[in-house]
């Protein structure tokens, strides 16, 4: 149980997909102009990532290593298509809001990377925990970026006006260059946090 928790936890801070592994920067730029979009995208990715890790881990004994990547992509595409069909039928409003983002999940580096690095070598339960943790880490990073961009670049949060009418939104934050600059600072910040954490761990180890 403790091991599962550790696997889950590492995706959130010490191996955060966006801020530390620098995977899937494309959606981090494209979909984070509002918090709503960032959150929806994050949750969709979490779902697909957890499902795909489970499937890949479950089938790892039968998949020929030479064609593993095409098979992983087939698996990801299948999951995304099934989700899409279900949403279209039972939540058409959500489906039309997600629009093109949903199909884009198929090519996200983070999903393929976790299948290759973790799920293909580990048992089903840890793989699920890994996918779920990575997904949550991805979502949190997306929300962080989205919150900053929406408040500074548009003066709103979740669509509600939070800045007064005196506030002139900074256009650059909404545009992709602004997101790049912001992500750069966040990567730096997470590096500092992780270093401090490691130092603390080392100290603890020495004391014991």
């Amino acid at each position, binding site marked *: 149980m403790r091991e599962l928790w550790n696997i889950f936890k590492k995706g959130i801070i010490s191996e955060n997909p966006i801020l530390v592994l620098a995977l899937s920067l494309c959606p981090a730029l494209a*979909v984070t*102009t*509002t918090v709503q*979009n960032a959150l929806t995208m994050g949750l969709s990715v979490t779902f697909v990532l957890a499902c795909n890790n489970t499937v890949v881990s479950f089938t*790892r004994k*039968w*998949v*020929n*290593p*030479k*064609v593993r990547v*095409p*098979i992983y992509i*087939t*698996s990801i*595409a*299948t999951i995304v*298509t*099934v989700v899409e*069909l*279900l949403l*279209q*039928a*039972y939540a*058409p*409003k959500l489906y*039309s809001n997600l*629009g*093109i983002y949903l199909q884009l999940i198929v090519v996200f580096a983070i999903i393929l990377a976790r299948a290759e690095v973790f799920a*293909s*070598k580990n048992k089903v339960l840890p793989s699920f925990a890994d996918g779920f943790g990575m997904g949550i880490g991805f979502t949190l990073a997306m929300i962080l970026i989205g919150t900053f*961009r*929406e408040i500074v*670049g*548009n003066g709103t949060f979740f669509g509600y006006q939070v800045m007064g009418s005196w506030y002139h939104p900074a*256009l650059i934050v*909404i545009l992709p260059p602004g997101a790049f600059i912001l992500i750069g600072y966040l990567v730096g910040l997470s590096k500092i946090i992780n270093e401090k954490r490691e130092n603390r761990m080392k100290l603890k180890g020495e004391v014991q």
Partner: protein
Amino acid sequence: MSDHENNKNDSVFKIALNLAVACLISGCIIAATYYLTADTAIKAGISLRDETMKTMVDGSTDIKEIQSKADWYEVYKDSDLMGYIIPTDTKGYGGTMELLVAVDKDLKVMTYKIITSKETPGLGENAGKSAFVSQFIGKTLEHLVVTKDASDTEDIQAMSGATISSKAVTVGVKKAVEELKSYLEGGQ
């Protein structure tokens, strides 16, 4: 997944079979899901469209398709004709945008709704928000022009940073009104 296992499965036939089986399974899963959800999806799509059109025009009670014009609708309040809903498309910043335009019977714009678009979020995408849409209400054909002059209150004020999207929407709405005008003149 060790090396000697690799050697065992080296033949092209085995590799191809492996991939083929994976694709076959995923094909079956997708086909089954589609089979189970297709009917519901079509129904959901139609009811979503009807709902969208009903919410576009305040006080509307009934929406009827016009027989001679595909996808054109007449909007009724009880038995009075209020106006028309006309589908149109226009070329925006990120590609084609599809709009539904509601026009009353005096050829004044009532409102419009963007159905699909790929405009920049936070900029051009705001063309679907009420701050911009409200400018169109009551506009007649000659005032469906984009201006950047803030003192010009007759025409449509462009959204800052999204002139192309502003123009695209205006062109689309204008096209719909023109089409309706020629339809009404031709029909009566």
